[in-house]
Structures are given as C-alpha cells and as structure tokens.
C-alpha cells in the first residue's frame, strides 16, 4: 500500500507538473531550439531573454494587477452571496429547495458566447431596463476604479465590467458546493447550540463555519481560478491596454500566424506562479485558520 501511494503520488506530481515544467524549460530556450528534430528536453543554452521580453513588450505587471483586483473582488463578493444562498438551500427548511437550486445552476448552462451581446449592450448602457440607473450611480460615485475614455457613462473598461459577470458566472458552482457542505452538517449539532443559548448567528460561526471551512475554501479557489482564467468576457469588455487581464494579455504576444512559444511560455509561467502561491496559501493557512478558530471558539 505504501508503495502504491508513493508511486501514485509520483505519477500525480509528474502528470500535474510536466506541462508546466515543459513550459518553464521552453521559456529558457531559444526559439529555434523548439522546432528542432529530434526535439531537445533540457535547454542547450539557458536564456532569460524571454522573461525580459514578457515585461518589455507589454505591461504584463499591470495585467497581473488587474487580474488580481478583479479576481479577488469577485471571489470575496461571490463567496459571501453564495454562502447566504447555500445556507438557505442547505440548512433551512424551505419549500421548493431543489427547484430553486436548479434555477441557480441553470444559469451556467448557457454558453457564455451567446450571452456576450446582451451583456455588452447592458454594460454599454444601451436598452437596459435594470442596469442603467446602477451604472449612472456608480459612475457618479466615481466608482469606475479608473477614469474611462468612454463617451457616455458606461461600465466597459472598468473593473466592474468583469467583476459583475464573474460573480454571476461562479455563483452557481459556489452555491452548489456550499449547499452540499451545509447539508452535511448534522442538524442536531446546530439545535444543540441553540438550546445552549447561542443565537442563530453565533451557532453559524461556532458550529457551521468550522465544518464547512473546506467547502468555503474550495469554493473560493474555484471562483478565483475561474475569474483569473476567464478569456472571452475579458477580451470583449476590457479593451484598453491598461485594463487587460492575464489570459488576454498572454495571447497578445502572438501574431496572426506566428506563435512565439518561448515568450508565451515565459508569460504563462509568470502568470501561473502567483496563482499557485495563492492557492497554496489558501489551502494551508486559511483552512488551518478557519478550522482552528472553530475548535477554539
């Protein structure tokens, strides 16, 4: 058994890291090494030129900042909303729970592509029954995050244009995950706390939070990664150079025909590493924190 675990782990690590390692090795190669037959694995001459290229050709650091702002905001907002909904659907004795949950999950069944035009019109401030007052309000508050060059007040080229749809896009999965986690908690546990004189809110933090911590963290990671990697909406809604996100930015290094693999590999490596670091942080610290806090409380 021990051997099986070790071998399995080794395979898993290899499977997961091989393409990234391949990218990293590629990013250290000269472009012409890439199309050689037979192919080379270890770079013959290590060059960091590709990394210099990544930051020189385009403001890649800015892309990363944009992605970070958008993804973090979307994650926090989405987790909060989904936790409320998940608590309602998973814990509370409500009629039509399954129908409501189906309704929420339903929204992720349409390809984002066909929703692009309606959303674009909405953010542009055209023919909107609901959003235009909100857009005007946010704009009046100066809450576009960055000044836009738009001719009419609209949400395009602002962080909102991505945060709002990202929250909505990840809401179904986050709600479903949290619902299933809240459902796992034995009802007796909460009732016992209530009998002990806890209020519902106290019971929430003392009893439910610790048990559902893995669920919350998982939901957060999923929302974060989904938002970080989203391409289509980011390409269409935020078209100003300084508002681009990482995945769109990476494709900007390519040409109509040419695909500079070495530069793009370097960009992918730079773009993925903070994500990995962040996920590790989430996994190690936050899970530990939430669980420990629950036990102490």
């Amino acid at each position: 058994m021990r051997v099986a675990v070790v071998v399995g782990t080794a395979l898993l690590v290899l499977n997961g890291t091989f393409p990234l390692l391949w990218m990293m090795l590629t990013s250290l190669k000269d472009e012409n090494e890439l199309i050689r037959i037979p192919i080379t694995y270890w770079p013959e001459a290590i060059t960091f030129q590709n990394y210099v290229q990544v930051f020189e050709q385009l403001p890649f650091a800015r892309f990363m900042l944009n992605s970070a702002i958008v993804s973090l905001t979307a994650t926090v907002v989405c987790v909060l909303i989904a936790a409320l909904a998940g608590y309602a659907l998973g814990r509370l004795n409500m009629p039509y729970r399954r129908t409501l949950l189906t309704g929420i999950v339903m929204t992720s069944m349409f390809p984002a592509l066909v929703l692009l035009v309606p959303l674009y019109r909405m953010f542009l401030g055209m023919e909107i029954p609901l959003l235009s007052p909100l857009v005007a309000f946010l704009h009046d508050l100066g809450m576009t995050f960055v000044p836009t060059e738009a001719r009419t007040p609209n949400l395009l080229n602002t962080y909102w244009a991505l945060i709002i749809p990202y929250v909505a896009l990840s809401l179904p999965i986050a709600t479903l995950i949290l619902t299933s986690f809240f459902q796992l908690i034995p009802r007796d546990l909460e009732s016992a706390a209530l009998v002990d004189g806890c209020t519902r809110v106290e019971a929430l933090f003392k009893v439910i939070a610790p048990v559902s911590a893995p669920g919350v963290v998982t939901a957060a990671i999923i929302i974060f990664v989904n938002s970080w990697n989203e391409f289509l909406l980011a390409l269409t809604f935020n078209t100003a150079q300084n508002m681009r996100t990482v995945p769109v930015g990476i494709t900007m290094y390519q040409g109509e025909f040419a695909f500079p693999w070495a530069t793009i590999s370097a960009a992918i490596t730079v773009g993925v590493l903070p994500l990995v670091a962040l996920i590790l942080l989430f996994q190690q610290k936050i899970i530990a924190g939430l669980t420990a806090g629950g036990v102490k409380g």
Partner: protein
Amino acid sequence: MSAGAPYLHKDGLPLALTTPHAYRRPGFWRRLRTGNPTEAQLGLILLIPAALVLALVMFWPIAQVLWQSLHFERLNVPARGRPFIGFEHYQRMLWGSDMTWDARHLLGWRLLAFAGAAGLWWGAARGVLRRPTALIWTVIVVLVAGLWMGYHPGEAGRWNDARFWNAFSITLLITVASVAGSFLVGLPLALLANVESRWRWLVRIALLIPWAMPRVLVGVMFAWLFNYTNGVVNDLLGRAGIAGPLWLSRAEPAMWAANITIVWATSAFVGLILLAGLQSIDESLYEAAMVDGASRLQRFWAITLPLLRPSIAVALIFRTLTAIQTFDIPYAMTQGGPGRALETLGIYVSNTTNSLNLGYAAALAVALFVMSLAITVLYLRWIYADD
C-alpha cells in the same frame, strides 16, 4: 368569543394562552418585523442577493437569447429583418420540414431514443428502478442513441441539419468520456492529496497546476505536444519504439487527443472538490471502523464513498455542464477538425455566431441548455435523494 380576541392580540399577549381555539400563526410580515422569521422566510431573505445578481447578469440575457431563438435573425441579411418564426429553428434542428421517407424514418428513431431516456428517468423518479441503475441505464441509452444519431445524421440538406446531429453525438461522446475520465483520475488524485505526508504541499500544487493554466492556451500547448513531427508525445513514443499516430490529422486519434487534454485540464477540478469533501469527513468514523476491524477497502466503500456522495455529485454536475459546452480545447487543437471530427455543439454555436446567423445560434444554445438541464435535474435528484 371571537369578538373578544382582537384586543387581547393588541395587548401583545399570546393568543394561544387566552383563547386556544382562535390561535393563528403570526403572519409573514409580523414574524419578519418581530425578528423571528420562519426558516422559509429566512431562506428567502438569504437568497435575495443571489437572485438579484443572477436576474441582472444571467436571467435577463438568457431571456433575450430564448426570445431571439424564436426569430429569424441573420445580420448579413438585414433586408429580411427580424421576423418572428416560432419554433422553425428547432424544427429544422430536430427533424426538418420536408417529410421525406428518410426524414420520417429518422424522426421516428430519434423520438424513440428520447422517449427511452425519458422513460428511464421517470422510472427513477417513481422509484420503479433503483436510482444508480436508472442513472447508468440512462447514460447508456442516451449515449448509444446519441451516437447512433450522429452516425446516421440523415441526408444533409437545408431542412435536416445533419451537422447538428454530428455535433450532438460528438458532444455526447466527449461529455461521457471526459467526465468519466476526469472522475477516474480526479478521485485518486484527491485521495492522494489527502494523505498526510511531508510532500503534501507538492502534491497539492501538482493537483492544481493543470487547472490553473489559462484554458485558452491549454489546447494550443497540447496541440504542440501532440504534433506529429515536433511533438513530445510522438517523440517519447518513438523512443519507446512505438510509431506514434497522426494525432491531429486523423479523426480517431484526434478524439483521443482531445479527451486526454480535457481530462488532464479538468481532473484537477474534480480532485479539488473531492478533496474538500474528504477533509470534512470526521476522522473518528474511520477510527471506529478500524476498531471494528474493517479493511482499508471496506472503510472506503462503507464510509468514504457514501459521505463523499454530495461532493461527487457537485463535481459531476459541473464537469458535465462544462463538458457539454466544450469549446476551447478542441477548437484550439484542430478548430473542430479534422473534418468535423471534433466539432462539438459549442464549436457549432460559435461558428454559427461568427456567420452572424444569430437566430439559429440562439436556438442551438437553447438545445445545449436543454441537454444540460436534463442531466442536472437527474443529478440533483441524486443529491437530494434523502428528501
């Protein structure tokens, strides 16, 4: 007696104490005001933010798409305008309008296949069949029927969208293969990542990296790895003395290549959700089982799998939903080729949108939606089996 009740109520005295026969449950608004809502009320309040966001950003656009699918709208034929045509798009997609013998014959088989799947589903709902049995049989019937429809798309023509049936069966094939694949890979990944060890951090990184890669580039990257002449895959196969296939230039290997890529990219997602499920399982259950002398495998069957069921369902639902919409990986690898061997419904929707046939693209998107809905309802029944 009833005449005296109102003033007591006004005094705030519990009605039940004085006049038990006249007791009424406090009204909805009253319970809200007094800060003592019922669970249902509380639930509705907690759902408001989610409902607002979804109504604004999802339901409203979706409603527009549904409405659009009932209209003729081709932006490169503006002279025709945007007339309402009812269900003509769906009719074209599903059976066509000129009822030749061929069309009627096909229609019969298609209806039969759908009826079979629906029958199994009802059977499961009514408790006639055991749910897992029904689930497996439904998958088998849908798969066989779907692939049959793909291989017999009917004579191509304006009124029988053979391309839709081809895309339908390819989508089904990719869905079943990649969902099963990512589950079979993801479950061991989650189990391994949950093992306490010094290397757990490394395992977790390895688990997450494939999924953290920008999806738009995964396909391009794998197309490069699968390249016939310069690809790593064929190079490694060659070193092992195996002649590598023409991965992306022949239909069957391309299907394999696409599924391998999708499984690689998405098993991490499944693993992550299952890992969270594993983490929430109470250790004491295992200890108790160990005391009872249960073997590792018995513990897995008796404790892990049942307690993991909700997580498995969540992972499967979302894997399935994204698999039905599969677009970027096959598109980046071969643009849906070779021929139409990888043209999924998602790619068909995209091509139709790019051809500016917005009405039909909307109808195709709705078809995709219906496929997803049927499957999700099935899964959700499984999660809420205890209710």
